[in-house]
């Protein structure tokens, strides 16, 4: 039963949403289903928060490795939770907007959270460099083609690329770096991306049917029943 009920729910809700796509009167059901999901997800947040607190409390009480950082996590968690939940310092009181400018919650988000997130994101620049270095090493024929194509794309996006091939006569302007860049991006690259997209769309249809028809049940436990 604990496998059959989730399957039945999946089947009914899934096919209702598929049919609702083609039938305007049922469109409301699809919207309502999304709202149901949001409500369930909000309740699940309590589970997530509870798990975070439990894990870190255990770490502190058992003095596990780096337990001091768990204190920082919990202090941060409860501090933001309290100033957000009770709208501490909010001029509108408990009925005010939670993200009203000038409130402690707003300040923590704007001046602590956003810069910290941006710092993590900025690591991407260094990782792109290191990944490109490995990917573009001309170890074999495919990697060499990749290196040449990548060089053209990079040069084509800079003024130096334009300058490099400015001497090419107009009759052969297809060989100018910016034009090669445009060709690579709009023809081979776009064609490849679309092929992948078509494959993904078909894969989603096939996978969804497996789930809706109960052929694939491993996410709710194998073999049903």
């Amino acid at each position, binding site marked *: 039963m604990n496998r059959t009920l989730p399957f039945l729910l999946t089947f009914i809700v899934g096919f209702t949403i*598929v049919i609702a*796509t*083609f*039938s*305007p*009167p049922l*469109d*409301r059901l699809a919207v309502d289903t*999304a709202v149901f*999901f949001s409500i*369930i*997800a909000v309740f*699940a*947040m*309590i*589970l*997530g*928060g509870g*798990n*975070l607190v439990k*894990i870190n409390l255990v770490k502190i009480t058992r003095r596990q490795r*780096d337990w001091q950082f768990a204190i920082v996590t919990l202090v941060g968690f409860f501090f933001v939770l309290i100033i957000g939940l009770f709208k501490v310092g909010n001029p509108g009181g408990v009925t005010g907007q939670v993200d009203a400018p000038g409130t402690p919650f707003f300040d923590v988000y704007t001046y602590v*959270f956003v810069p*910290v*997130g941006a710092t*993590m*994101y900025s*690591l*991407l620049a260094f*990782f*792109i460099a*290191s*990944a*490109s270095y*490995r*990917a573009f090493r001309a170890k074999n024929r495919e990697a060499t083609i990749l290196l040449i194509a990548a060089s053209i794309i990079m040069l084509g996006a800079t003024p130096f690329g334009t300058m490099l091939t400015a001497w090419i006569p107009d009759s052969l302007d297809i060989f100018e770096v910016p034009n090669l860049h445009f060709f690579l991006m709009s023809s081979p690259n776009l064609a490849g*991306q679309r092929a*992948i*997209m*078509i*494959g*993904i769309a*078909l*894969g*989603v*249809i*096939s*996978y*969804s*049917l*497996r*789930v809706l*028809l109960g*052929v*694939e049940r*491993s*996410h*709710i*436990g*194998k073999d049903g029943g």
Partner: protein
Amino acid sequence: MPPAPGARSIASGGRVLILTLTLITLTSSLLATDPGPGSIAPPTLIMVNDLDYDNGESLTISWVPSLDDVPGQSEVVAYRILRSSGGGQEATIGTVLAGESTFVDQSVNRDSAYVYRVATIAANGGEGYSLPTDAVVPNREWLNWDLVWLFLACLVLGGSVVFFIETARRGKKLFVRKIAGLEAIDEAIGRATEMGRPILYIPGIQDMDEVETLASLTILGKVSRQIADYDTQLFMPVARSLVMTAGRETIKTSYLEAGRADAFNEDMVRYITDEQFGYVAAVDGYMVRERPATIFLLGAFFGESLVLAEMGNSVGAIQIAGTARPPQIPFFVAACDYTLIGEELFAASAYLSGEPRQLGSLKGQDVGKGIAMAVILIGVAAATIAELTGSGFFAGVVSTLQNVFTTR
């Protein structure tokens, strides 16, 4: 010389005719409008149309703007839309700025008839009212005929998937090509077991309503079964609470099936945070501290994909990645040992299970690919011939294909 009597009579008759026509025009103009104080020309030709393919909840009102609504030097500031129903009181239901000529009324009921008027509002407070429209009842359409081709495509694809599932169920052997990334799962888990280091499973950063997350959890079911057999340590940090719950259930089921219920620990799956880079910081930190031997990155990834994959690479882990986000695929290809590209992520669970019915669904998917390839070839050929020869027939073929495969 005086004009001939007959000519005078004709001229006089002409003047009478012009006068009469002018009077008729003025009278009809006065009848068509109901100028208020500081009168201003009202909008004309008020049309009310039922919105196509809806649940009978919308009517579109359109009009020809007032003669006084001149761009740049308009005396008109706005148009007021008034509505009455069943002989009841007329009420204002909306206002649009001067220059606009349509309004969508989304507050109608299917069972009622509605009459509309549109009023011009002048800067000096004057108003000019149009005549009321005929009563209009909104219609409900049960099928969206704009999507009929999409519906047929879904029927063909869905039908072929179901057909091949049934074919496989009857025992017909189906060939499925080898997928390197999935063949390497054994090796990757074995490596972690031999090295005595943990396996890190990252299911993306999206929730359970994302099909990639669901596909990732089905793969997790197969992978964790093998991890349970090998008695290797597994860690799965998640960015969504529902994924945590579903992930725990999936792993628990696998451990039960492997007869290793005692080895299952809820803390294998931990909620970190919903925030993208907070999650990345925690997972990267885990990689640096614990140095997992094997990392699975399967699911929906965005800007964090390369930050995770490069960190995994730097700690020397064998990495198997897969996503259906085309912009992230090159990052995974560059930083990981194996990458499941797009559809391979969705095929993985069927491939790993080896179950005929699931493999059959992959064959059904191939029918869709065959149709897509045929249509692309026909379209390219027709467009080329139409361009070279100016043939109307081939241009028609291209236009028809564009119509069929464009969803409005």
